[in-house]
C-alpha cells in the first residue's frame, strides 16, 4: 500500500513538473515565434503615414485607432507620427520626411503651410488626405473630418438652448491660425448673433492647452466680470475654463466646449460644463483609410467627407442632431 502511494506520488511529481516544464518551453517558443513571425517588410504592402497634430492627445489617438483598425482590414501598414507638443513647423518637417520616405498615402491636418508639400507629394504620386482641418485649395485628394461650419452652428444652437435672452459670451479658441477653429468660430458667431441681446464680448486663444485655457478664462473674467457664458472651441478648452472658474471661485458662468476629452463628461455630469459638441475622431480615422482604399482601387469617393458631431449636454444624452 505504502509502496503504491509512493509510486503514485513520485509519478505525479514527475508528470506535473514535466507538464510545467513543457508549458514553459511552449510559452518561450510561442513568444519567440511572435517575435520572429514579423512580416518581412515588403514593398508590396501599402504604407500610410498618419501625421498627428500632437502625438499623445486623446483626439488624435482615437483617430489613429480608427485608422489602424481599418488599415488592418486592408492589410495596409500604418505609421503614426507627430510632434510631442503642438508645433506646426515640426509637423511640416514630419510631412516632408513622410514624403521623402515615399509611402502610398499620407493623412495630415490641412494647414495652409502644408500646401506646397502636399503639392510635392502629389507630384511624387503620393495621395494626401487631410483630416480635422481641410485645405481646400491644396492638391489633397480628399478631406475627412468634422464639418466645422456645421459644428459651429450646432454649438451656437446648444448655447442658445441653455441661456436666457441676454448673454455675454466669452470665447476661448484653440488656435487663431487653425482653419478648423476659425471656421467653427465664424459659424458660431454668425449663428449666435442672430439674437441681438447675445453679445460676444471677448475672444482669446488657448493654444490648445488646458493650462492656457484656464489662464485666459481668469484674465477674461477679471477684465469683464459680467461674462456669463464661456465657450471653448477646441478639445481641452472647456476643462481649462472650468479650471479658471475654480480659481476665481465663480459658478455662475455657463461653460460650453468641444469634444469629450479627459473629464469633460464628468464635469457635464456635475453640471459644471453645460454641454459639448463631440467629434468622432475614430470614425474620421477609419473613413480616411476607407477613402484611400477607394482611391487605390479607383472607386468613386467624395472630396469632402463630413463626419457628424454629437451633442453631449448635462441631460447626459449624447444625441445626434
Amino acid at each position, binding site marked *: 500500500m505504502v*509502496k503504491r502511494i*509512493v*509510486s503514485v506520488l*513520485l*509519478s505525479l*511529481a*514527475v508528470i506535473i*513538473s*514535466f507538464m*510545467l*516544464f*513543457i*508549458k*514553459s*518551453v511552449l*510559452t*518561450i*517558443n510561442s*513568444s*519567440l515565434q*511572435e*517575435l*520572429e*513571425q*514579423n*512580416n*518581412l*517588410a*515588403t*514593398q508590396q*504592402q501599402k*504604407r*500610410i*503615414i498618419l501625421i498627428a497634430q500632437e502625438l499623445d492627445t486623446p483626439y488624435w489617438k482615437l483617430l489613429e485607432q480608427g485608422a489602424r483598425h481599418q488599415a488592418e482590414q486592408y492589410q495596409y*501598414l*500604418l*505609421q503614426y507620427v507627430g510632434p510631442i507638443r503642438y508645433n506646426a513647423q515640426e509637423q511640416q518637417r514630419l510631412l*516632408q*520626411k513622410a514624403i*521623402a*520616405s*515615399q*509611402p502610398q498615402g499620407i493623412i495630415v491636418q490641412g494647414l495652409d503651410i502644408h500646401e506646397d508639400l502636399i503639392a510635392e507629394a502629389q507630384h511624387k504620386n503620393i495621395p494626401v488626405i487631410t483630416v480635422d482641418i481641410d485645405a481646400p485649395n491644396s492638391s489633397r485628394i480628399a478631406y475627412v473630418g468634422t464639418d466645422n461650419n456645421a459644428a459651429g452652428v450646432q454649438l451656437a444652437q446648444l448655447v442658445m438652448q441653455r441661456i436666457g435672452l441676454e448673454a455675454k459670451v466669452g470665447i476661448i479658441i484653440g488656435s487663431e491660425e487653425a482653419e478648423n477653429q476659425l471656421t467653427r468660430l465664424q459659424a458660431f458667431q454668425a449663428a449666435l448673433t442672430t439674437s441681438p441681446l447675445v453679445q460676444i464680448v471677448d475672444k482669446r486663444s488657448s493654444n490648445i492647452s488646458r493650462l492656457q485655457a484656464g489662464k485666459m478664462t481668469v484674465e477674461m473674467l477679471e477684465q469683464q466680470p459680467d461674462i456669463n457664458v464661456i465657450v471653448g472651441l477646441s478639445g481641452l478648452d472647456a476643462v481649462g475654463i472650468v479650471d479658471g472658474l475654480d480659481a476665481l471661485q465663480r459658478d455662475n458662468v455657463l461653460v460650453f466646449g468641444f469634444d469629450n476629452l479627459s473629464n469633460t463628461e464628468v464635469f457635464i455630469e456635475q453640471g459644471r460644463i453645460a454641454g459639448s459638441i463631440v467629434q468622432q475622431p475614430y470614425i474620421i480615422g477609419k473613413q480616411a483609410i476607407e477613402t484611400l482604399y477607394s482611391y487605390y482601387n479607383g472607386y468613386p469617393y467624395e472630396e469632402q467627407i463630413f463626419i457628424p458631431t454629437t451633442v453631449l449636454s448635462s441631460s447626459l444624452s449624447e444625441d445626434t442632431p
Partner: protein
Amino acid sequence: MKIRHLLFIVIPLLFVAYSAISLLLFHSSHRVNESYAQFQARLLIYETINEQAQQSVQLADQWLNYRQIQLLSDLQDSSAGLAASLEQAQSYYPAGNAVAEALSLQQLIISFQQIEQHFLNTEEDTLLLRGYLDEAQQLASFISQECYTLIGLELSSYQDRYNIILQQVANMRIAGIVLLLSMLLLSLWLAYIISKSISTPIQELVTTAEGISQGNLEQQITQYHKKSDFYSLANAFTHMQGALKEQIATEKQALEKDKQLKEMELEVLKSQINPHFLFNSLNVVSKLALIEGAEQTSDLTVAISNLLRYNLKQLDTPVPLRDEVKHANDYVYIQQARFRDRVQFHLDIDQNQLDTTVPVLTLQPILENIFVHGIEKLEHGAKINLRIYGDDQFTWITISDNGKGMDEETVSQLLHYEQGFYSSKPATGQSTGLGTHNVFRRLQLLYGDQHGVEIESKLGEGTAITMRIPRGA
C-alpha cells in the same frame, strides 16, 4: 511482470525522458539566444545605417569643398557600405510594431542613395550639387530620426516579450530542476522496487530451503504470478517438498511393516512353548509325592512347576535380574537332580546390579545350552559360574562353564543373530524351546546398539558368554 520486461521498459523510458528534457532545455536556450542575437543585429544595423548616412554627407561636403580624389573614393566606399547595410536591413524581420517604419527607412535610404549618385558623377555641376547636398543632409537627418524611432520601437517591442521570456526561462529552470530531481527519486524508487522484487522471493526461497534442510516439510511456499520469473522456481520447491514428504512416508511405512513382522516372529517363538498342561500335571505330581513321603521328588516337581510358570510369561516382559537369577537357580536345581554331584553351580553376584531389568528368559536358555551341549558328556567336575557385575550404565552378565567348548563356526553362527530368524536348529527335545540365538536376538531388538554379546570358547576347555545390558532401559 517479468523483471527482464520491466527493465526493458523502464531503462529506455528514463533515458528517453532525460534526453528529451536536455534537448528541450538546450533548444529553448538556443532559440532565446538566437532571437536576442537577431534583435541585437537589427539594432546594430540601424545604428550603422545612421552613421553611414552621416558619414556620406560629410564626405560629400568635403568632396565639394576640396575635390580630392581620395574623398571621392571614400564616398564611394561609404555608399557601397550603405548599400550593403540596406540589403542587410531588407533581409531582417523587424519587430511587429515597426514594419511600416522599417519600410520607411528603406525608402529613405533609397532616396538618399539616388541623391548620392549625383556626387559620384564627376560631371555634375558644383552649384547643382550644392542643392543636392542640402537635400542629402535633410534625408540623412530623416534617416537618423527614423533609425532612432526604429531602435525605440524594437526595444519597446522586445522589452515586453523579453520579460515574459525571462520569466518563463526562470520557470523552466525551476520546473526542470524539480523534474530532474523527481525523476531521480523515481529512478531510485524503481531501482529499489525492482531489486526488492528480485531479492524478496530469493530470500523467501532461501528460508524455505533452510527449513527443508532442517526437516520442516510443512512450509507454505509463496506462490508467484504466472508471469513472474519466480513462478517456476517456487513451483519446483513445492514439488521437491511434496516429493520428500512422500518418500519419508514410504520409509515410515516400511519401518512399520518391519516392526510388525518382528512382533509376529516373537509370537511364533512364544507359541513354540506349550507348557500349560505340563504345569498343571506337575502340581498334582508334587502333592502326590508329598503325600507318599517323597519330599525330594515333591521339591523337584515344585521347581519344575515354577520353571514352567516362569516360562509362561510374555517373552517381551521385562523382569528384574533378581527374578532371572532365582529362575536360573530353580533350573539348575532341577538339572542337579539329574546330574547329582557331577555339576557345581557358582554364583558371583553384585547385588546392586540385580535391579536391572532384562527380558524374561535371558539366563535360562543359556544355562540350558550349557547343560545340553557343554557338560552333558563330563563324568564329573563340571562347573558353571554365573557372574553379574556392572556400573551405573551397564550390567554385565557372564555365564561360563568348563565343558567341551565350541568350534569357531558355531561361535560365529551364534553371533550372527542379527540377520534373519528361524535360523536356529529345531529344538532337540532336551531344551525348553528357546535357544541362545533367540536370547541374543531379543536383546538386540530391545536395546539395539546398547546391548553387547561376547563369546569366548575353546574346544575342550569351556565357554564364557558375556552380555551387556543397559541399566536405564
